[in-house]
């Protein structure tokens, strides 16, 4: 039995699940936080999504059979939670999730939890102008440097499709920055 399966068993065992889950949070909270933060932009929204992600992981750990990497599985949950959250929030105010993100990004200058320079702000605004899927793929490839094969597992999209989306995203961002 490999290390991951042992860890999953510990998560499912009532005797050990408390300490195992604590370890899971400690190991992955930061990576998942930054992944979610790139999607939803705002810190408080990220905090909500991150907590919901870990709760979903805990509630569904018995369905995880260990056929894939637990990190990939958690990443997928975090991505879905973040996109659903965006959809829900934007519907509440009657805009698309892309419009919602553009508005959030416009307010970044006054956000106490953003201290990027002018160039970083310009880059974020350019990223915010991308369609949702391209934005997601660009963030995962450019900032998180996730390999296409891994991204393909997480997003359940072909490697070719991901490369094409990333290529389009880069082109649009370059154009936007040079405007």
């Amino acid at each position: 039995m490999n290390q991951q399966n042992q860890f999953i068993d510990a998560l499912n065992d009532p005797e050990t699940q408390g300490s195992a889950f604590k370890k899971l949070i400690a190991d992955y909270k930061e990576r998942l936080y930054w992944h979610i933060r790139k999607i939803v932009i705002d810190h408080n929204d990220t905090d909500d999504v991150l907590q919901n992600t870990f709760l979903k992981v805990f509630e569904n750990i018995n369905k995880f059979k260990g056929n894939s990497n637990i990190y990939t599985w958690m990443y997928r949950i975090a991505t879905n939670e973040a996109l659903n959250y965006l959809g829900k929030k934007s519907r509440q105010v009657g805009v698309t999730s892309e419009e919602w993100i553009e508005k959030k990004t416009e307010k970044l200058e006054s956000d106490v939890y953003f201290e990027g320079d002018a160039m970083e702000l310009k880059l974020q605004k350019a990223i915010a102008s991308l369609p949702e899927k391209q934005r997601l793929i660009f963030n995962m490839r450019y900032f998180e440097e996730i390999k296409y094969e891994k991204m393909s597992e997480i997003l359940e999209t072909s490697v070719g499709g991901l490369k094409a989306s990333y290529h389009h995203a880069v082109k649009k961002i370059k154009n936007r920055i040079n405007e």
Partner: protein
Amino acid sequence: MSEIGKKHSFRVPKDYFDSFEEKMLDQIDSKVSEFGFTTPKNYFEKVERDILSRVNYPSGSRSVLKYMYRAAAVAAILIAFIYNENNQKIQYEMTELFIEEYIIGSSTYEIADYTDFNGLSVETLLNSYESTGIEGVLDIRLYGENPTNLNILDDE
């Protein structure tokens, strides 16, 4: 005169220098930043506690509760079943009435048209014919749900 200004006139809070290092490290922690995005101070310690406080681990009392839920579910099914049994009688009567009305209003040919003969074989017909002999009929009449004409043999 040469000593003027050499003595510190300014004060610092008690233990300021003792706790300075710790405070500085806290400040550095709060500067966790990725491409301009930052988090509140000690956010990652706090979020861990927040998540753990929201998780419901199965405990003894929870297990009892689980059994109570199960018992309640079984009781609900039983009640539904009994209710359905009472209702079924009415439903049967209504169905019979409906079919009767339907058949009365139809000619023999129409009734034949409604009947599905596909699943019917001669063998099945014979078997079902044989299975109800005179004793069977008598049993049904004597011990069936609605016994009728108990003097049938007397007539014969």
